């Protein structure tokens, strides 16, 4: 079985300790997590977590089922790649001056990224997109000298008007 990468969206009650319980499962069950993001939702009582992980079908199935069993978890959905908007934010600080700086700024335009800070000798660039786009940009600027970078991990939302957590869901879990 192949080791695919997949994204899972999770709705949880927004209270302390919930992230610990979910991340504890990773070590308990030997799940390979690539990225993990969490934030508030339109409903302040709920938080939304996006996990990307890799594994075969059995691992994927177990990850979803074991997370679903946690008391604080309201809903778990495996996101289908073709129907999901996936985004990640990157901030990268590149060492560049003179001509080399111009080349980096040109590339930054091509990737439609934003320069957020400049100093003598370095430039700080912000870029959002799918992970592959961020990877491509990092690969391009690498020869110029990356001083540091930071990525948020992916967040995922389904295309169209359908929502992950509906009124029906909240009735079911009430």
């Amino acid at each position, binding site marked *: 079985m192949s080791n695919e990468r997949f994204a899972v969206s999770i709705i949880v009650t927004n209270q302390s300790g919930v992230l*610990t319980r979910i991340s504890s499962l990773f070590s308990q069950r030997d799940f390979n997590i690539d990225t993990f993001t969490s934030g508030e939702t339109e409903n302040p009582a709920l938080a939304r977590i996006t996990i990307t992980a890799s594994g075969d079908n059995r691992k994927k199935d177990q990850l979803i*089922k074991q997370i679903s069993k946690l008391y604080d978890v309201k809903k778990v959905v495996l996101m289908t790649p073709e129907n999901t908007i996936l985004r990640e934010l990157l901030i990268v600080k590149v060492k560049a001056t003179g001509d080399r700086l111009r080349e980096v700024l040109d590339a930054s335009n091509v990737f439609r990224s934003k320069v957020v800070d400049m100093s003598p000798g370095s430039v700080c660039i912000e870029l959002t997109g799918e992970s592959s786009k961020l990877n491509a940009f990092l690969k391009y600027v690498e020869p110029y000298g990356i001083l540091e970078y930071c990525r948020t991990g992916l967040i995922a939302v389904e295309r169209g008007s359908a929502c992950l957590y509906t009124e029906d869901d909240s009735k079911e879990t009430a």
Partner: protein
Amino acid sequence: MQLTGCQIIMEVLIEQGVTTVFGYPGGQVLSLYDALYEYRNRINHVLSAHEQGACHAADGYSRASGEVGVCIATSGPGATNIITGLATAKADSIPMVAITGNVPLDLIGTDSFQEVDTIGLSIPVTKHSFLIKSIDKLADTLREAFRVAKSGRPGPVLVDVPKNIQIATAEYTPKPKVEKIPDEKPDTALLDEALMLIEQSERPLIYCGGGVINANCQQQLQALAEKCDAYVAFSMMALTAMDCDHPKYLGMSGMHGRIAATRAFGETDLIIAAGVRFTERATGNKTKFAKNAKIIHLDIDPAEHGKNIDANLKIKGCLTTALKYLTENTKQKDNEAWRNIMDEYKNHTKETKTVDGCMMPWEIIGAVNKKAAPETNVATDVGQHQMWVAQYYNFKKPRTHLTSGGLGTMGYGMGAAIGGAIATGNQTVLFTGDGSFGMNLNEMATAVSQNLPLIVVIFNNKVLGMIRQWQSLFFNNHFMATVLDRETDFVKLAEAFGANGYRATNITELNSALDKAFALKSPCIIDCYIPSEENVFPMVPPNGSLDNIILK
């Protein structure tokens, strides 16, 4: 009615029908113990020798009675001491509620005296845990803890109550006992597919797990076995799910299972698995497991589907409903050829050899069995004696077998036996080894103070037998740290605790000791000498195929 947090805890426990709690006092539960004093006529508190014993006792209470067992421990070391007990209950899906005291909320995180991250420690060993941060949420959260413990796949729940919440006051409104959340109905379309597999099957085998005991559907299981003329193999957790004298009863299967039960997996064409999780000890090498069979996997917990074994049909939901539906909609089957195969295997006699001058484990179990009643609780610790009991004891009634199956906790037995004896009021026998007993023998003090009808039968072989067995089979007889150079006199030990002690070196002495022990109705120890070299057989080597059983 305005009550303190501790009084609210007492009231909610009474709401839930709790009559007995097991525990050990300490600094951060002093207020709780003051409430236990106030409520002493309505809640019986059993003081253990160590918090681990209290936790195992609550677990044993739950296993024997089917009710949610309750234990109490203080913060810090009190909380860390119950972790093994919680993990034991979690591994075997036992409903219980542990209440821990903690330092006041404003001291949490300051490394104050006897402070530990109880919630953090509890996460992997409980079904869920609650930290109470507001007195207004105390009553409903404690009620919710009971609901979570017994709903769906049961398990232990911890409620951590900081000191300031215990002494705060709030309005208390009584509520009825919480009911478990009704089990999900199994999918009828899938059950109909299962019926087709049963219809086609000529050699059906029911594989029964602890879920059947938890769901209390032993009758439905037996009815299905009779209707489809299927044999029934058991995980260790489910040995009491059927009368062992029933013609379809094969006993425990797996690493140390009975030959007929283990062989059946290689012969069957259809496994109907009910509330069982196919651990590696039970299946052996998974790639060689039950190659000729289709598998129907019934379980309340969908995460068990595909975790260890990929079944042809995975049916989640209420076990009772599923078994009943399958029974009602199956035509009476008559699998004569299957009976011929299995009766042949069943005729493999159990080991009965005797050696002059010492007793064999099966002789001891047989002697106890003869004097015990069907409702006698049989607790065990972990190791060789546990396997011998699983192989040789004739269980007749559900919930009479208290053993740590999943976690395999040496030292479980004393606490569990105490819990079982208190829950049922019945005579209780603990089979243990000199190794396991050494772990938590301090709880003899509890058995004596409670004057429980508890007979501790020690299989004394002067070694850590199961580990020694593996050293002899797989580690070139390097008996590292398994030979007990101890001079413990268990008869004197019993007397030191205020119990009776007997020594038995042969079956005559054992029978005479048992006569006295069963008449006592109070705690006693019978120190039984067995040979150090005796190993547990049959045995399927780790990761071996169930078809390849070592017989001796």
